[in-house]
């Protein structure tokens, strides 16, 4: 039992962190049709901002949460400004051009991190209440991992509720489905785009904030989890939040079990999963149909 439970908990915890980051990415691409390469930059920015707001010290959970939310809101605000000033001018361009533009934004963000925080790595400690492990069915589990699982599920429920059960969510799905018709019906498409980009970047920043106690903070953080996030988006189906959740769980659990039982294959778990799923379902597990079906 222990041999199975430990990889499950490890895999799910990592999957939730991955989901939070990837959900923002899939929302942006699903609604705006923009592959946001700068997503990793906002992830890193969220982590560094949390470090600064927390002064790099071990805070009680409530204060750490405030720092994390504050960092995410700053990321969202910055993201919305960038969307209005830069990205709004590129929507009519080809995917290649918009890809280059978002990549340029990533490089600028990475350079800014070095300019502001320097080259020396930083470290944000775990919140004071979550620096230990708990015993769950005979297995030691880091309490912070349990927090990540809870928060990931909360984000999933929140996004599902907003997208499916609110007028705003219906507007977003309408724009994602057909922006021309939506505009004709009086929906302010520009506002929806800015809002969705802000939400997507908020999630990236939140992912970074939650990841800050787990990783060394340096400029390479922008590429941490980005490859996995793109894999989650592709495997889950572009634009599908539920698909992103399922894909994140799939990739997280696969990696965790392979590390435990066949470490040689663990490094390839991402690519194995992508290859198998995309061969069987090229649009991903839930594809683009997911946003229209509710």
């Amino acid at each position, binding site marked *: 039992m*222990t041999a199975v439970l*430990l*990889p499950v908990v*490890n*895999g799910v*915890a*990592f999957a939730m962190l991955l989901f939070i980051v990837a959900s923002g990415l899939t929302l942006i691409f699903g609604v705006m049709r923009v592959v946001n390469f700068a997503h990793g930059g906002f992830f890193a920015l969220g982590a560094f901002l949390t470090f600064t707001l927390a002064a*790099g010290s071990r805070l009680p959970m409530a204060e750490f949460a405030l720092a994390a939310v504050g960092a995410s809101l700053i990321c969202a605000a910055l993201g919305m400004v960038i969307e209005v000033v830069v990205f709004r001018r590129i929507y009519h361009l080809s995917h290649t051009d918009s890809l280059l533009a978002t990549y340029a934004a990533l490089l600028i963000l990475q350079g800014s991190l070095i300019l502001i925080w320097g*080259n*020396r*790595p*930083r*470290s944000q*400690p*775990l919140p004071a209440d*979550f*620096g*230990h*492990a708990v015993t769950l069915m005979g297995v*030691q589990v*880091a*309490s*912070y*991992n349990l927090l990540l699982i809870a928060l990931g599920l909360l984000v999933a429920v929140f996004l599902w509720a907003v997208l499916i059960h609110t007028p705003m969510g219906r507007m977003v799905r309408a724009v994602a489905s057909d922006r021309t018709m939506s505009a004709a019906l009086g929906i302010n498409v520009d506002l929806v785009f800015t809002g969705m980009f802000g939400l997507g970047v908020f999630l990236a920043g939140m992912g970074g904030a939650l990841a800050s*106690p*787990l*990783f*060394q903070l*340096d*400029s*390479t953080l922008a590429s*941490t*989890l980005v*490859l*996995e996030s793109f894999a989650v988006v592709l495997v889950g189906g572009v634009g599908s939040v539920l698909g992103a959740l399922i894909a994140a769980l799939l990739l*997280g659990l696969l*990696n*965790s079990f392979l*590390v*435990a039982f066949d*470490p040689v294959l*663990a*490094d390839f778990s991402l690519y194995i999963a992508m290859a198998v799923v995309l061969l069987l379902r090229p649009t991903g597990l839930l594809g683009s149909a997911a946003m229209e079906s509710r």
Partner: protein
Amino acid sequence: MRAGILRALGALLAGTSLAVAACGGASSGGQGGKAAPPIKLGMIDTLSGPVAAVGTDGEKGARVAVDEINKAGGVLGRKLQLVTEDEQLSPTASVKAVRDLNSQGVNLLFGFTSSADALAAVPVVKELGMTLVAAHASATELRTTQFVPNFAAVADSDAQSQSAAPEFLHQRFPDVHTWNVFSYDYLTGHQGWNNFTAQMRILDSQFRVGKEVFIPQSATDLTPYITSMLSALPAGSGTTQGVYVFLYGAAEVNLFKQGAPYGLANRFKVILTQGGGYEALANTLKANTPSSWVGYDYSYKAFNTARNRQFVKDFEAANQGTPPDAWAEQSYESVYLYEAAIEKARSDDPAKVMGVFGGLTFEGTQGKVTIQKKDHQALVPQTFTHFEADPGSAQGWKESETVVIWPSKSS
């Protein structure tokens, strides 16, 4: 009249030309008055990107050496001049940098953060008749299968560092016989562990290999690897077993950050890390620094030689009181290696300089340095420094002890 004016003008022109030639000859000193051109040393190191600290600290160390030597009159009466190029942690960029320096007439090179970059550069260095001193690159291949006479190394080789570690550990912790490992899952990671275990088997008849965990360089979530190690450890491992951590960069820090809730550091009697920077772990984790030994080839506090005292003093004066790290020291030593080689060869011609690499000796920060004849590897000691958290101090950590080991194996 007109002819007279023309003759006068002609005489004036001729006289002016002669006067200018004479002044030029005087100011250049004729055969002895013209200033000798400087001897150019080319530093190729990582000056940008996530590990830019290696190259930028290295450049600071090199400049201190160049200033010291120039203040003392230079080499063969000529000043040294440092020319730098960015390695960019890219073999392609490194090779381009070698060719760029060659086209500028800079043929005495040193540096290289990455062994892969150094391995790419070495054939080009040989082709162009240049020389290369590895300041940081430690790969065994540079000293064995890929060795060329144009190459020398100040950086400790993997064999040196990984044979010194068991010697130190067995001496200091003779009752610890089981050793576990966290290492990168790539060639150097496996080679490093193999070197460690091979030397341990010679030293300790009771040596046993514990759990081996090799982590992919691309891995971000280390929790599965950490729990894999912890679930293999017996009860009481915190008083009987050790762990050898052969990681560097973010993974070294992430291992202890993600392992902290599980009390990873307390599950071993001894933790030895090698591969990362001397103070890198402590400087990043601060008050969360685990009690651990760090093996490295230089600690500025470990050597009480005249050269080291001068180096630390001059480095701190040039860098707002910051003491030098190993990267600075390695570049500093590289410059002094060239000073000794050029003096011995009585020339800065690379062909003559490389001819004196083997058997060369010079005063380094760690004492007298000898360059081996067989592979041009400098015989350097390893320092083992104990770090631990010190929450009461401003920096959050302290060094409690340093031990210097001269390894029995050099390559």
